[in-house]
């Protein structure tokens, strides 16, 4: 009866509980790593008419036209000039691909499901509605984001594929 053990091993070794963490101001956020396709430096953004402020425009990702969302603006933080340290996290949500602008990418952390606490009643400044849970990593406090909630409303026909 080795099969179940093997499967469990696989489960533990998989990325299911890994999160990519990044900075917005002095706050730290985490994004499920399975949703992250790649991390990319700043590239030319083409502005689009009739879009909310946090949708910065579209960029060319190897031939695909990908919208760029500024998480600072989305969360109501002060906007920041883009510079050569600005990072795009390219994420996949359902069948769609989006770029998220963040200040800096931190690292990848492992989180057991029971290490994640439910979201406390937060002020919206922290983007409370988009936070799926909170994790304490040593001294650090990481807010785990719900990417689907963040981009829903921006992306049409967001199918849960």
């Amino acid at each position, binding site marked *: 009866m080795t099969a179940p053990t093997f499967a469990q091993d696989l489960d533990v070794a998989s990325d299911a509980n890994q999160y990519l963490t990044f900075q917005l101001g002095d706050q730290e956020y985490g994004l499920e790593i399975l949703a992250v396709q790649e991390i990319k430096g700043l590239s030319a*953004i*083409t502005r*689009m*008419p*009739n879009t909310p402020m946090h949708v910065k425009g579209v960029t060319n990702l190897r*031939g695909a*036209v990908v*919208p760029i969302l500024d998480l600072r603006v989305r969360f109501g933080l002060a906007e920041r000039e883009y510079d050569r340290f600005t990072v795009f996290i390219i994420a996949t949500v359902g069948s769609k691909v989006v770029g998220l602008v963040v200040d800096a990418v931190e690292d990848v952390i492992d989180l057991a499901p029971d290490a994640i606490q439910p979201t406390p009643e937060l002020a919206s400044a922290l983007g409370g509605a988009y936070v799926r849970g909170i994790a304490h990593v040593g001294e650090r406090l990481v807010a785990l984001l719900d990417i689907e909630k963040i981009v829903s409303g921006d992306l*049409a026909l967001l199918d849960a594929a």
Partner: protein
Amino acid sequence: MSHETDPFAEFSEAFFEEAAEHVATVEDGLLRLDAGTLGVEGMHGVFRAVHSIKGLAATLGFGEVAAFTHEFESVLDRLRSGTMVSTPALAQLLLRSNDTLKTLLDASRAGRASSVPVAEETAALKAVLHGTNTGAPTATTAAVDATDVATGPRQYSIRFLPRPGLFATGQDPMLVVRELAELGDEVSVVCETTRLPAIDALDPEQCYLIWVVKVTTTAARDVIEQAFMFIEDDCEYSLRDVTDDPSRAGVAAFAPTLKQVAAAAVGDPKPVAAEATSIRVPTDKVDALVDLVGELVISQAMVNQIATTFDLGRLKELQDALASLDRSTRDLQERVMSVRMLPVATVFNRFPRLVRDVSGKIGKKVRLELQGAETELDKGMIERIGDPLTHLVRNAIDHGLETPADRLAAGKSDTGTVMLRAFHEGGTVVIEVSDDGRGLNTGRIREKAITNGLIRADEVLSDDELHALIFAPGFSTAAQVSDLSGRGVGMDVVKRNVEGMSGSVAVASTPGQGSRVRIRLPLTLAILDGLIVGVGGASYVLPLLSVVESLRPNPRDVRTILGDGEVLVVRGESLPFVRLHSVFGHPTATTEPSQAIVVIAETDGRRFGLMVDDVLGQQQVVIKNLEANYRKLDGVMGATILGDGRVSLICDIQELFRFTTTRRHAADIGATTVGAPEDIFA
């Protein structure tokens, strides 16, 4: 058998495509049979088509299809051999059978053939075969069947000697054996190995075996001989009636074995992704592609070679090589696009049947004329144009054409004509649906439009403008249809569908002489010729197809009317005028039209002026769907990537024109983004 390990999966896909073509052939043939214009050759063609489906279905294990086509084929065979005469009722039954076959094929493709009820159809076909169906000419069939009954089932012994080299031509003798075995219930198959050489002389690619099939069947000799239809040149066979042969007794014992084998082979239909689409491409198109890729590789090698030892003295050489590369790339692009092109015949073919059904139902005489069916259109559009066309043809018959009595009273022939026509015109494909019926009733359209609040009661409109109203949404609810010669029904949907393909639709009509709906489509959805314009530091692409001219207006040419709307006066004509920078919310330095460029664009025959800062150039652009990762934007039909790697938005001229009439400007559209940072460089 799981899908992954199914060695037939790729053949299955090809089979379904081929079968779809056969089904279309059969339908076409049966319609002509019904009309009495199907000759003997045509009947053979119909039979062969069904026979091919049956053979392939059996080989690939689509048992339901094979079983159903067997009955279908048997009836067709009687017709082609002349032992049965067609009647309208029989043609009707056969058309229905063909529909069932189509449904069955679709279901098999989705892996749920067993869910299709075929029992009734099968029974009806069997009834025809046995002369008990009223649909068949009773006298003839009864006579034929009487002989059948008198003689009863016969046992035949068939000796089948394939030519040794037949594998080389892709033939499979087992298909013949299997088909023979399907003719009756009592079957024995014995394989003779007398031709087998010694093992060291054996060529595994040769066929040495001989089969003797004994089958008890009611089928006529020529039906049995059909099993050899595709292999005739590659075999010898003998057919002997051995009904009274005493050795017959041993037959039954063999039967179960073979039947079981057959059952195992045809069992469990394979689940095939129904959405999987593919294109059958003529070999010459592929050959041309291969040649072009060869040229491209050579051109590229030339450029590489020059680049390694480049100095300015060789600039001319480099330019030549690049020009050749450019040409090859362009050719390649065109050819690759042509692979996606299919003749509109694939859509047109459904209409003879539709016209027959609809006209029969409402008691009108209709002649359908098809022209330009060979005109090619992008596969994606072929698939999407079917429904709008069906709608238009149905409308033309139902509402456009008068009843035979009315026609005669109007001095026309009692048979109305509906014409479907496709042709090329200036880089676009035009598809027209026209009829010689009563034409649109502008008076009633006007009344309806006033009631619906689409126009004011005192508004003066030209006939063309009135006709165009039938495309307005809300003009077409069921209650209004009967009121208004019905042309309004769903026309807004037709328009939306066509515009969804970057096309346009227009209607023309002459009272008493008929109407014509003209759909204009781009050749392809993937690439367009664009005019690149600069607006407030950004660049936009305007589809060149819609661009009439560009000019720099004199200061006096742009006038304001009633304080808000601007018009542009061009050679005495005043056109609506929009400033692209204000539509898209770009701060711009050029606010004075006489300092800017105005592009005159045309949509649906209406022209308007678009003010831009600059015209940057003209190039072919590959259309990228914004909705793939984002969503639809007002005034934008898509995006493209320019030579410098940046994304540029492609304007939707039709929507931009709407902005001119609805006075929808920066106030509604660009407000949220005004003041946002301009393009950002790394």
